[in-house]
């Protein structure tokens, strides 16, 4: 019966389930999505490398080993090494009080922590000039005591702290809220000290979320441009971070050198993305293990 029917009215070889797209729609949309990714994400990365080596490997090495570049790398590392640990401690403290306790003003505090995300980096730099600049509230005092803040390292650190403030806290607060406090309460009831509870219960459970926040915080700290640009004064060999160095080289029409230095920052971005997806994968596995 089936054979005669198939001869009389050949049915299509296969059907498409309701949750599947018609093949041509699927191919067209996939191609479009890959085109978007290629044009907006991959091509810029390729172009950075291409431009960096346009004048040969020698020019690339020269640009990277230039003493000013070296100093910019050093300054960027110092900034990140100051901001990231401080913001990590802040993030843990903020997540602990917000996710574990009820108190008046809690949601206002959360909003204030999130605020730097919605403020232009330029404004972030500006506010510190208003406070610590030569005409600012405290600027004269600090300068008079030989400790200038604006156009110096402390200003760069402050501006970077501001723009990276939410990263760790924002990752930890929802995570800790979802986890609930039963395990920590149990450990206190069993007689653990606060210190012991933190190292044996809290930290192991938030470590992947914490790492995730720290990595993003670090990427932003090393790559911040707008806020740092406003407070640094662009003094080469003194207050020039890597992103600012890229800008100076580019504006001096040293394009290859600018892109050579940019490869360092692009490399940082790639490493960040790789670590981030590893962390996401581990987090997902931890979650699946916990729920199964």
């Amino acid at each position, binding site marked *: *019966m*089936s054979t005669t*029917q*198939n001869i009389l*009215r050949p*049915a*299509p*070889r*296969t*059907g*498409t*389930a*309701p949750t599947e797209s018609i093949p041509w729609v699927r191919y067209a949309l996939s191609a479009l999505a890959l085109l978007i990714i290629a044009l907006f994400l991959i091509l810029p990365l390729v172009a950075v490398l291409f431009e960096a080596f346009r004048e040969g490997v020698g020019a690339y090495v020269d640009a990277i080993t230039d003493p000013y570049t070296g100093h910019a790398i050093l300054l960027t590392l110092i900034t990140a090494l100051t901001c990231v640990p401080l913001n990590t401690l802040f993030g843990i403290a903020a997540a602990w009080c917000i996710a574990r306790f009820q108190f008046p003003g809690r949601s206002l505090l959360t909003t204030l922590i999130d605020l730097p995300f919605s403020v232009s980096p330029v404004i972030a730099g500006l506010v510190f000039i208003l406070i610590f600049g030569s005409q600012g509230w405290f600027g004269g005092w600090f300068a008079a005591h030989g400790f200038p803040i604006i156009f110096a390292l402390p200003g760069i650190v402050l501006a970077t702290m501001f723009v990276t403030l939410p990263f760790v806290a924002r990752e930890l607060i929802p995570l800790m809220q979802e986890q609930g406090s039963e395990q920590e309460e149990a450990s206190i009831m069993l007689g653990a000290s606060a210190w012991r509870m933190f190292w044996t219960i809290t930290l192991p459970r938030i470590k992947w979320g914490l790492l995730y926040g720290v990595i993003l915080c670090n990427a932003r700290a090393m790559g911040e441009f707008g806020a740092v640009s406003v407070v640094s004064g662009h003094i080469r060999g003194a207050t020039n971070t890597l992103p600012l160095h890229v800008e100076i080289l580019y504006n001096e029409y040293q394009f290859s050198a600018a892109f050579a230095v940019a490869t360092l920052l692009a490399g940082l971005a790639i490493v960040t993305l790789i670590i981030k997806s590893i962390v996401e994968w581990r987090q997902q596995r931890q979650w699946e293990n916990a729920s199964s």
Partner: protein
Amino acid sequence: MSIQVNHLTKRYGDFTALDDIDLAIDDGELVALLGPSGCGKTTLLRSIAGMEFADSGNILLEGRDMTFEPIRHRHVGFVFQHYALFNHMSVFENVAYGLRVRPRAQRPPEAEISRRVHELLDLVQLDWLAKRFPPQLSGGQRQRIALARALAVEPRYLLLDEPFGALDASVRKELRRWLRRLHEELHVTSLFVTHDQEEAMEVASRIVVMNHGRIEQVGTPEAVYDSPATPFVSTFIGSVNVLHGSLRDGHFDTGGWQLPIPNADLNSRSQNAFVRPHDIEIVRDASTPWPVRIRHVQPMGSSYHVEATPVTDTVQGPRVENDYLTVELTRQTFKTLALEVGEVVGIRVHHLHWFHQETAPALD
């Protein structure tokens, strides 16, 4: 023949979900697809609906080959285990959906849509919820709305995938009776999937028992219970005692116990026999050659379940699955016998069935 399935086979990698399925369903029937999880019942239902497509074989609806037709040409109404209501639409809009998405030429006017929706909501007795949104309803109410939505397009077939699976026991019982009455009223050919044998027995006019992607038996609830076609059906539907032994000279021999079986002139070496708990009688006199010791008594309300271990002097003894027999006694019988745990009594086996081969029919 309303729904006809021929040689349907479907594999997922190494796993065979449907293995050469043949099935015919008549107009107006209410049929249950029953089996343990992973037996292929849901795959079969979804293949008939057009949500999945088999590797080989075909599906005929009213004689037309619909194997690869898209779902919208099949005139099926589908009800999901988790309702699948559109949460962003009101109850009214959910039920009206199937009418609103029709091509302009076939779309009923607004007044007609409104009339039909309210009629259906009346039918499921939930007209007062028309303006609510699905997340505000209880599980039982959602499933009734889901059914009204499926009926709105006047389907020729109603397919229900574990329709009561996500509901509380009491709601489930109520909805079962309600579905049965609804079917008597509408007479739309209906096929529902369930893993609950009680549900299948209570609602369906015919039961299709499936296991490992194959159909084990098709029959009325009585037939499936009274004359199971395979060992699987015997154990899956109702409870049963399984005895290991052999057939010899008109007897079933298990470790020295010789249980008489009628019409059996066959001999076999290794064999299972099945006895329902209510087909065993307990007798006080020691006249029966099958003594058992009472191990545990479980009151079940209207009846009593007695666990009894065979007493024997041979080395191996009768080979009973789980090492005890379950005997179901009426309340009256139990009171009359006044059984005590630990005492030894006799049993009589009134009905025993066995299968010569895995696929042989039951014999009395």
